[in-house]
């Protein structure tokens, strides 16, 4: 008699993600994993290493650097090769740098488009990647809730939400023509809580920015913006205050709002999240655009 075999929901999510990673490695010529340094990327990297253990992951990492990330994020990224013995490519849109594009001078929308979306497309074309793995989750936003795990992109990196390939079981259609590509989301079925529970269970290292600490912030339009370096111009009379804050989500520092918090440990962060009344993307300035902005951005190639 065989005893019942019961997997927990985290076991099932982990197995599903590993299956997806292996499928990408097996079926694509030039896959890449987009690494954005945040908690979801930390989980992705952990799963990537597990999927191919004991071998080194056969999929390279790429960070699209907007040049406005928190300093702590860049330091964390730069420590990866030494810690895990993996390579990480960094791509910056040099056209954007030459034009002096910044979230300060050009606003969130232009900055994100040039330094993130266009930069990503440049990198994908430059290295001829036919599959790009990202950490997006369906619970983040309602157009993401509709996206496939293997999400087809035409040769211009465009997403056609009304005409997606049917995706059944765990049988993924990985066929693309020259120039076409697929975005792959191994964390599709994970929620924010799952991510934290998994980080807790697996003791995955994440950035200290996720934990509360005294940080210099200014309050703008209801968002707490951290003064991470001297590039953030202060309004007359505006002085950074030290407040106990942490971040639920991380992007470009002038575009990412912190939350007041005293949660300095993993347990405390999770406890705080369980009673949270706002979604994690509320801290993203970029998402405060008109409704369906995510769908539009995604159609144009945003991750």
């Amino acid at each position, binding site marked *: 008699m065989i005893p019942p075999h019961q997997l*927990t929901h985290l076991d099932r999510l982990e*197995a599903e993600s590993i299956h997806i990673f292996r499928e990408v490695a097996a079926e694509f010529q030039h896959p890449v994993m987009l690494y954005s340094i945040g908690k979801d990327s930390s989980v992705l990297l952990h799963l990537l290493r*597990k999927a191919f253990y004991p071998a080194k992951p056969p999929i390279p990492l790429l960070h699209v650097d907007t040049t406005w990330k928190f300093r702590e994020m860049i330091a964390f990224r730069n420590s990866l090769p030494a810690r895990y013995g993996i390579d990480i490519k960094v791509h910056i849109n040099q056209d954007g740098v030459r034009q002096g594009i910044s979230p300060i001078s050009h606003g969130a929308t232009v900055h994100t488009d040039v330094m993130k979306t266009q930069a990503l497309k440049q990198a994908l074309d430059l290295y001829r990647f036919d599959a790009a793995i990202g950490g997006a989750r369906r619970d983040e936003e*309602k*157009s993401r*809730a*509709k996206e496939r795990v293997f999400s087809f992109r035409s040769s211009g990196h465009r997403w056609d939400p009304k005409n997606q390939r*049917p995706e059944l079981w765990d049988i993924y259609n990985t066929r693309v023509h020259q120039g076409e590509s697929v975005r792959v989301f191994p964390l599709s079925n994970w929620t924010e809580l799952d991510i934290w529970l998994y980080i807790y269970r697996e003791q995955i290292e994440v950035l200290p920015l996720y934990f509360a600490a005294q940080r210099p912030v200014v309050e703008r339009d209801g968002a707490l913006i951290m003064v991470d370096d001297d590039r953030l111009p202060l309004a007359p009379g505006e002085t950074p205050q030290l407040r106990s804050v942490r971040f639920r989500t991380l992007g470009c520092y002038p575009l990412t709002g912190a939350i007041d918090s005293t949660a300095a440990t993993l347990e405390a962060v999770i*406890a705080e999240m*369980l009673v949270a009344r706002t979604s994690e993307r509320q801290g993203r300035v970029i998402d405060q655009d008109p409704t369906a902005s995510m769908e539009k951005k995604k159609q144009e190639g945003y991750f």
Partner: protein
Amino acid sequence: MDQITTTTDHAEQIRAYLTQHEHKSLLRFITCGSVDDGKSTLIGRLLHDCQQLFDDQLAALERDSVKHGTQGDAIDFALLVDGLSAEREQGITIDVAYRYFSTEQRKFIVADCPGHEQYTRNMATGASTADLAIVLIDARKGVITQSRRHSYIIALLGVRQVILAVNKMDLVDYRQDVFEQIVADYRQLAEHLGISKVSCVPMSALTGDQVTRATDSMPWYAGPTLLQLLEQADITGSDAGRGFRLPVQWVNRPDSSFRGYAGTIASGMVTPGMAIATLPSGQQSTVARIVSADGDLERAGPRQAITLTLSEEIDISRGDVIVEARRPPEVADQFAAHLLWMGDAPLLPGRQYWMKHATRTIGVQISEIKHKVDVNTQEHLAAKRLELNEVAFCNITVSAPIAFEAYADNRTLGAFILIDRQTHATVACGTLSFALRRATNIHRQLLSIDQQARATIKGQTPRCLWFTGLSGSGKSTIANLVDRRLHALGYHTYLLDGDNVRHGLNKDLGFTPEDRVENIRRVAEVARLMTDAGLIVLVSFISPYRAERELARSLFPAGEFVEIFVDTPIEICEQRDVKGLYARARAGQLPNFTGIDAPYEAPEAPEVHLRSAELSVEALADVVLGVVVQS
């Protein structure tokens, strides 16, 4: 649902809480119904009552409701789940949306699917990963065509558990008789469709009655709420008790000292030391280790993503299936299968597609559409082609044998998708029912004495000598002589003669084309059993159709089947007319007589071509004998 006091000091308390959260099970379900049935309201209600909606999401929803909503000033939950702008503008669900919520016991993934017929393929997408389906019925309408279609699609995709949610009970005054009638109607439908487990709940998504909380509006109903049914649904499944199957996804070779086979277990348990075989090749080995990043495992089961190493190295690559040697699945290359067509261009039998089955992608062809199924009435219809969203039962042929199981027994080894070779679009999903013929080089059962052993003891090579030709061509005369000569030389033979077999095994068959096909099929199977026993079998049958002779040939390993064309001009046959049959046929007394009013399709490339008009019977027998004895 999730209640906790935020006190960072109580680390212990939080740890206990996390432990409980970590050990939740996961249930994936699909909701079937349309916006009119209150489907979106139901999902919104579940998310809302399980506190899965955040304040900023609610605020956005309120803004959207004013702009696009259909509920006046009230919140329109449909806008929450319909995430695409086209959906919100048109007020319909186009594609599947996945939603997440959890309770103390379980985490849930909801696939919210469109209900319209033109989005059937998207509904199938949602159903393919579901453990359970909620079929939503408007109490005022009862079981309607749409309910039938939805139930048929979920049954087709193998969902065997249904919660029948009879919604809008508030609009029928919470009447018990209305509910009971709908339940009775639905149970009948479910039984017809093979849905084994149906739980029924009367409710109102709008008021919240019986969704997440029991109310006193229906004192006659003492059963569980919808949420309780979701929490209690059995998800253990029987996969763990079945034979071990691991479709190989990735061969892990970091260096020459390690060779692992990575994949997700489709069914069964595996332990180190287990005897395994790899299919379709059939090579055997033993499991050495179950490798994982968290250390070697002592055992692993369904849905786990693992890496195996073997004690004795054998040739395994992606697409192969590692199976328990004691309980292997079948290997075949022709199947009967259900197909749901998802392509914009119609399916045409005979055209080549790619089939992705587990981790293997191979060429496939739909050889025949047996019948189309009307998704609304489940009526069987004749069809020559298949259009978008149509379902059919088909015969399919793949370009090489694959290990498979019926979809009802094993979702992973029974499911497949079809990909268009030009556009690369996913044009169909399908489920395998059974093999039409077994593969040529694989044994169903790993018999301890195989054909080789049986043949060796007889000192011969098994053969099927298939004599085909017109009535009166001399087939039986030559076959008889060959048989006698072989016997004299000490060979173990048997002669299957058309006339004799029609007196016994095939006495129920006539001479219509259908019966002739079946006649040949049976004889070919008998001949195959005999060669399997090591015999040299002589078959003397008119066997007029090329297709059936090819079918017979396909049952044997390459080289074992020898087609012998006894080529005698019909004039000579008619002249001989040993049995007086031609005369009767000419007189119209024998309809469907081969060569007269039924066709004879001559072999195009027989192994042996006997021109009987040119040689004596003895000389012809020598030719055949030469083929058998030299090998």
